[in-house]
């Protein structure tokens, strides 16, 4: 195992790649009672067109299939994985994002049994026509629940603006119509393609002994056979370099009391995985803090004018194939909100210059926040992303933040904050009759 020591934080990570291709990372936390483990495949909602393992033709699968597969992994011929975790007292769950599906548990006891359960249920698929049909009612309700959620609609409305020709625009769970088409054969095809250990990572953090845990995992994996791994061929549309496909503005009505608005900026340049990506994300986060954080002049100015309030927030999403940033909030006047936010974005040079020492302060703040995250097993595990950042953990981030310069920020702002990449989406209160 490769050991990385983070002396400043008194933390250590252990990493190895098993013979079958599975990447394992272990991060013991002294004094903690529970252990949190995530088994993740690089397969998410955007991967709906790919060459299935054993075939040589590109095939388009129904939207929502990765998420559907996630639900169905738990159900076996004669039991449910939730029940097995229940026998060992673990709390289990799973989630699907744009690019990943993760299965997880947290438990204060029976670590070996729970770990075995996690590996075994994810590596032993069982799908049947009857169980697939039954799930459609449950996921149908999940989709309807999100349909009524204004924040979700706002976010996906913006993604639809930025990516009108990309599978990102589809809801992670798909639609009632798309999931109706999913068959157990589809699920097996997706499973065989993406659930090979070579395409997966296991991250365990908390109460654990690294040597002992690795022995268990190795024995469990050695007892299973896998087909040789064939590199995955996904089909994703390329980013349109000048952003001319972006829909600049849309609005919808919903039964809400207060309007909600979101401004999005699409990254038009793909970011290289690894150290570059880690630095890029840190740079954008510092940039956003300078432009819109509560330590900024802009924030106070917009707040005092009533343009933004405590609901204002922003987020930068960086993945292997795309990146975009969003700024959103509730507002009485969406047009005014959008105009004010766009004004700050387009005039970033007024803020990102060498006139003051705010950069040093923001860096200090963000480094401190990494220390906060060290308390949370979930934060440590969920921030890990092998495909995007390699072996890096959150404890690698402070050094990256500390090294950032004004020139780094300027270069990223120059590239990211371009007018043709900006879009607006608004939810307005539906007239009551």
């Amino acid at each position: 195992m490769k050991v990385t020591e983070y002396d400043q934080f008194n933390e250590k990570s252990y990493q190895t790649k098993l013979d079958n291709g599975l990447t394992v990372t272990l991060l013991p936390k002294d004094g903690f009672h529970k252990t949190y483990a995530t088994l993740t495949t690089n397969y998410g909602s955007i991967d709906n067109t790919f060459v299935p393992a054993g075939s040589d033709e590109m095939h388009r699968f129904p939207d929502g299939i990765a998420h559907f597969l996630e639900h169905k992994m738990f159900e076996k011929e004669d039991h449910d994985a939730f029940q097995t975790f229940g026998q060992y007292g673990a709390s289990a769950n799973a989630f699907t994002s744009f690019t990943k599906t993760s299965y997880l548990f947290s438990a204060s006891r029976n670590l070996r049994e729970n770990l075995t359960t996690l590996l075994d249920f994810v590596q032993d698929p069982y799908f049947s026509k009857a169980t697939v049909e039954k799930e459609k009612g449950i996921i149908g309700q999940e989709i309807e629940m999100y349909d009524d959620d204004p924040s979700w609609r706002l976010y996906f409305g913006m993604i639809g603006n930025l990516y009108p020709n990309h599978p990102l625009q589809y809801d992670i769970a798909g639609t009632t119509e798309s999931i109706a088409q999913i068959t157990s054969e589809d699920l097996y095809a997706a499973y065989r393609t993406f659930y090979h250990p070579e395409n997966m990572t296991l991250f365990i953090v908390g109460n654990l002994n690294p040597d002992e845990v690795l022995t268990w995992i190795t024995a469990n994996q050695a007892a299973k056979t896998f087909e040789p791994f064939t590199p995955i061929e996904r089909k994703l549309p390329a980013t349109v370099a000048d952003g001319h496909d972006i829909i600049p503005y849309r609005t919808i009505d919903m039964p809400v009391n207060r309007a909600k608005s979101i401004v999005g900026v699409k990254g038009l340049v793909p970011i290289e995985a690894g150290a570059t990506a880690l630095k890029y994300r840190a740079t954008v986060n510092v940039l956003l803090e300078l432009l819109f954080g509560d330590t900024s002049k802009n924030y106070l100015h917009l707040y005092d004018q009533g343009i933004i309030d405590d609901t204002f927030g922003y987020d930068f999403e960086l993945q292997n194939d795309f990146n975009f940033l969003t700024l959103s909030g509730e507002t009485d006047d969406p047009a005014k909100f959008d105009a004010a936010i766009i004004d700050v974005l387009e005039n970033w040079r007024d803020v990102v210059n060498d006139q003051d020492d705010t950069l040093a302060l923001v860096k200090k703040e963000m480094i401190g926040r990494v220390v906060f995250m060290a308390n949370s097993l979930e934060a440590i595990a969920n921030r890990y992303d092998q495909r995007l950042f390699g072996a890096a953990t959150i404890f690698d981030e402070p050094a990256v933040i500390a090294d950032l310069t004004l020139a780094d920020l300027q270069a990223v702002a120059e590239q990211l904050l371009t007018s043709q990449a900006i879009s607006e989406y608004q939810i307005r209160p539906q007239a009551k009759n």
Partner: protein
Amino acid sequence: MQTQLAKGVQLTTVISHQFKTNQIIVNFRAPLTRATITQRSLLANLLETSSADYPDQRTLANALARMYGAAFGAGVSRKGPTHNLQLAITVANERFLATDQPLTNQAIDFLQRVMLKPLASAGQFDQVTFDRQKTNLEAAINSVADDKQYYASQQLNAALFAEEPAQQMPSYGTIADLQAITATGLYDYYQTLLQDDQIDIIVVGDIDEDAVLQQWQQAHFEDRLTGRPRPFYQHHNTQKYVEQQEQQPISQAKLNLGYDFPVFYRGDHYYAALIFNELFGGSPLSKLFTNVREKASLAYYASSSIDTFRGVMKVQAGIDGDNHDQVLQIIAAQLTAIQNSDFTDDLVAQLKLGLVNDFESSLDSQRTFAIQALINDLTQEQVTDAEWLARIQSVTRDQIIEVSKLATLNNGFFLSGVTE
């Protein structure tokens, strides 16, 4: 370590080396009354964004950033018949940063300034800041209803506590009450609060207890002349089911049910009730999850929760509006099944293990210490970890059946889509 700084003012310090941050929490606790809920909510917003030494958010945010991004917040909550206004600050332990800044000392100093020196002069809060926060709170209360599940649960709460206006209200207040509040009136109320509220201060982390104590002694709190608020409110059992219905243009219907369930925190039946709730709808192994979701495929979520400070249980499910009767029937059948002893001992053993796991896992959150210290003070009782575990383990099947019979369905709120 526990110290009484004055009558009704407690300081609890907890040394823990598990976390890389230190946390300081101040709770102001008072009896829940309709007249003060909204004022306290507005106070939380004012204290979170301004004080005499940090007159606007930027100054305040900069002060926090200088403490390596200390996290500061104010909030309100209800626990039975008490209302709690909380100020909390979390700060990194400087050992993990290349600095000799005494961060915990600075954080306590910051909190004391915010608490004791509000942005006010001539007997009133700064008018501009007050007006801004009043406007923002009104907008926030207004948009709460945009979360339909939350809205439905609020409506159920209002129906369930029809006999007591203060229990009906959300802990963040109402727009009607907000409109009457003035910068002068609120300042007067804050002075009363500082004098009369029970105050619990909790400091958790790798701390120097004596230094912390000394720092808090310098705040010179005065004795409270008020008594301790009661810890529990007892819901009134109507003995009959009444359902309110409302339609809105939404996709998914929300069915919310409220039960009278006279079980109180650490009282008779309490540990059995925890297991009963897990069995009925509190876990993925529960009757509701298994039958409403997994078997009948009628919902993505169908769950139960108990409030042992008010003696009620609630059920919520997101369903297709047309399935209302069927879901209601399945939910009722699950409760009857438990009352008729229709569950396995294996399942009970698993649910116990699940509760033990939740309990032990909660010890990994710094916040748990503050929550527990507050409840201990509220109920004037302490239970060790070992005792808690032993009591869960000792719950019998008969006790679960017995406690399940205490649940009486009283109210329902059904929010459904508009049928066209």
